[in-house]
């Protein structure tokens, strides 16, 4: 095991300030995000960091000096480095905007050197926007703060789905040589809802009902994406029965008809109910049935 004092290049009696200064100097030189792809820098940084972890903690340093612990110390947890994201396609998020090969290669494919003075359209700017589930269904207006300090009021049309992109003309980067500005491309992420699910233009809802409501029927108030409505549960409704509320799904837009809300019933038994239990002990069904009939073989 290497000597942490040697790794940082400080004397055994170095002060805490000396150690901090030595670490800073080495970290600036060897930080792996500043030296992407350089394995030597990465290994050196690891050694320097663990030496600093040991020597910058007075208690650990004293125990090391007394020979109670070795230089290995605690292994540092591997953490995701910035470069692993910056090298990937997603790193373009912080890029200079050169989607392709940039200026070095552009001449290679260009037939004309006049292009530099030609009016050029500005680049499209890509943004992302998260929208609440019900807002995405009914449509909404949301303000987006851009990195350059501008704000954009984005109108999200009713029925927007996750991953769809809105294009705001002329809201991207400015053009060059009086060319038109680029567009803002806004990719929408719809956040999941606590109890609604979307399937095409229909909205699904699992609705808990009591045993009494399921057997005898009831009139209940249930949520929809546009507010609460009253719904009739017919008598003798079992778990899994699906009731359809026409037109209560994704609203109609253009040629697209409105979707429905599909309500799936789930019978929920009470936690403890002595009366129900004693009733069931005494209860003789009108017809004995076995719901597991036909489940005799595991085939």
């Amino acid at each position: 095991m290497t000597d942490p004092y040697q790794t940082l290049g400080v004397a055994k009696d170095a002060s805490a300030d000396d150690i901090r200064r030595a670490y800073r100097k080495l970290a600036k030189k060897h930080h792996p995000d500043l030296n992407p792809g350089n394995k030597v820098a990465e290994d050196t940084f690891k050694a320097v960091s663990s030496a600093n972890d040991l020597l910058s903690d007075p208690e650990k340093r004293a125990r090391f000096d007394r020979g109670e612990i070795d230089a290995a110390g605690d292994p540092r947890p591997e953490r995701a480095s910035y470069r692993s994201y910056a090298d990937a396609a997603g790193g373009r998020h912080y890029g200079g905007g050169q989607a392709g090969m940039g200026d070095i290669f552009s001449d290679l494919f260009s037939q004309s050197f006049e292009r530099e003075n030609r009016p050029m359209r500005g680049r499209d700017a890509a943004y992302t926007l998260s929208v609440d589930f019900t807002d995405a269904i009914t449509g909404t207006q949301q303000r987006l703060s851009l990195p350059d300090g501008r704000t954009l009021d984005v109108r999200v049309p009713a029925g927007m789905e996750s991953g769809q992109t809105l294009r705001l003309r002329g809201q991207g980067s400015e053009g060059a040589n009086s060319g038109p500005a680029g567009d803002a491309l806004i990719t929408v992420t719809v956040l999941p809802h606590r109890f609604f699910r979307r399937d095409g233009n229909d909205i699904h809802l699992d609705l808990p009902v009591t045993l009494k409501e399921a057997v005898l029927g009831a009139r209940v108030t249930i949520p929809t994406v546009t507010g609460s409505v009253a719904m009739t549960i017919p008598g003798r409704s079992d778990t899994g029965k699906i009731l359809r509320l026409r037109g209560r799904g994704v609203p109609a837009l253009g040629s697209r008809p409105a979707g429905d809300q599909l309500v799936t019933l789930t019978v929920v038994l009470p936690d403890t109910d002595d009366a129900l239990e004693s009733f069931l002990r005494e209860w003789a069904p009108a017809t004995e049935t076995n719901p597991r009939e036909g489940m005799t073989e595991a085939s």
Partner: protein
Amino acid sequence: MITLEMLPRHVRGVRVEDVTRWVALAWVQPEQGPAGWLFREIDVARVRLLVELHDDMDLAEDALPIVLSLLDQLYDARRQMLALRGALEAVPAEAREAVLRALPP
């Protein structure tokens, strides 16, 4: 994705007021959620890098935009080189070898 309030649990030693300033300066560009900023993995890693540059390496905040700009250009160039390598892998071996021969030794 994680919120501003959750950041200190993911980045040791981070101060929320520093991150707020860095976002205002567009050094970090989280997603705009309905209830505030949402940080992707790359944003969290960038905040961690900024904390290391600022606190561990004691770089002055004035110097950080230069460092970030150079880093962003470095990673632009690396992504372009990686894309070029991917493109070279896709062309016929003959063309690839011709390109490799044309490279300076």
